């Protein structure tokens, strides 16, 4: 229960319902987004919560039809802050790919979901952020290019070309990782 007081303003409860609707419709989207953009499960829980706290404060001023855009923009800001605040792991380029290669000892090996996600995150980590975001929106959220363009505030052509580049790069990285994995298991 959310503890409604008997004397609560009726509009307050309407407000609560609007917040509830926002959380129900978009929580998973935001959570998966921040998760794939680099947060751990528990950090993603916290960051997503923060996104909805911000949204709740502004519930009456979020424009109609732009709820997702508002949440997306808020999520990226929360994420940027989380990254800045996080202990700075100085990752050398290629470290994650090397780890990935070590974990992918056979191309035919069936990976459980956990390992698959680790692999995916390692691949995504190699992409520049602007490519990473569009490919996450396209492949995981199954958004169309126009929808992605809206969220990112990009012209359609730019969104499309970023998505194309992201997919090409991911394919190259996947091939590279498989090769490295094979070399490691041959050695």
């Amino acid at each position, binding site marked *: 229960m959310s503890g409604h007081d008997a004397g609560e303003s009726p509009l307050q409860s309407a407000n609560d319902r609007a917040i509830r609707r926002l*959380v129900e419709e978009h929580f998973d989207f935001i959570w998966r987004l921040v998760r794939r953009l680099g947060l751990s*499960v528990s950090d993603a829980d916290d960051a997503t919560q923060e996104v909805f706290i911000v*949204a709740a404060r502004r519930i009456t*001023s*979020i424009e109609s039809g732009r709820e997702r855009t508002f949440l997306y923009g808020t999520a*990226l*800001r929360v994420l940027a802050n989380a990254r800045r605040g996080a202990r700075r792991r100085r990752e050398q380029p290629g470290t994650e790919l090397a780890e990935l290669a070590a974990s992918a000892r056979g191309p035919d090996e069936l990976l459980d979901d956990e390992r698959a996600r680790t692999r995916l995150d390692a691949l995504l980590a190699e992409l520049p952020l602007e490519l990473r975001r569009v490919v996450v929106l396209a492949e*995981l959220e199954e958004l169309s290019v126009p929808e992605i363009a809206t969220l990112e505030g*990009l012209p359609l052509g730019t969104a499309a070309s970023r998505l194309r580049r992201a997919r090409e790069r991911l394919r190259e990285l996947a091939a590279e990782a498989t090769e490295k994995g094979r070399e490691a298991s041959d050695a």
Partner: protein
Amino acid sequence: MTSEKDDDAALRALYAAAKRERPSAGARERAFERALGSGRAGGRRRNGVVVAALAVAAGVALTAGLSAVRRGPVSVGPEPVPVRLTRANPSPDLPRAASAAARVSPPASSAEPSAAHVEKAAAPAPAPTLGDEIAQLQAVRTALGAGDPKRALALLDRYARSTRGGSLGDEALVLRLDALTRAGRGAEASALASRFVANNPGSPLVDRARAFVGVPKPAASTAPSPTPAEKTE
């Protein structure tokens, strides 16, 4: 060497695993509870104008008389002040529309720099926001205040059509009771109020609705102004 097909299949498997991942148990509920608390605290402490507008839209003004209405409109527009996400040095990796969204867009009537392609993108139209509903009920209230209950009723019909009930359906009903009464249709108001009271015994507005049961005429509007919600904090 691997083929492109193999690589694509491998990637698809990774995406599928990512799609199956779920937040921690209870994370959504916790977020809702925290958001709820924050929405209330933020609304009361930092957003008195909007909360006052909410209270007015809710029809608080109805029982206390409509004299306050004529003194001037209460803004229901979003306040332009950023909350806490604005940083001195915005991260360069933030997309333009996203940054704009996080600052909260201006009222719907004003143009936005990125609106052109946004509109072309034709995002699916979800239900109106609470802000829209409030604006619509505010217009109803203004019509009532201007002594035009017919227009108020027309606006309420439009509200009902555009929101299919909406988050503020109960509030709209109380406004309708008032509009009907002022339009000389007290019997209809009374019947509607009786039905509402019978069907919604738990509604916070039930007492307000009950006041219209068997009331043929509007109350004299010389009562003091309603207490704005901001004074309650």
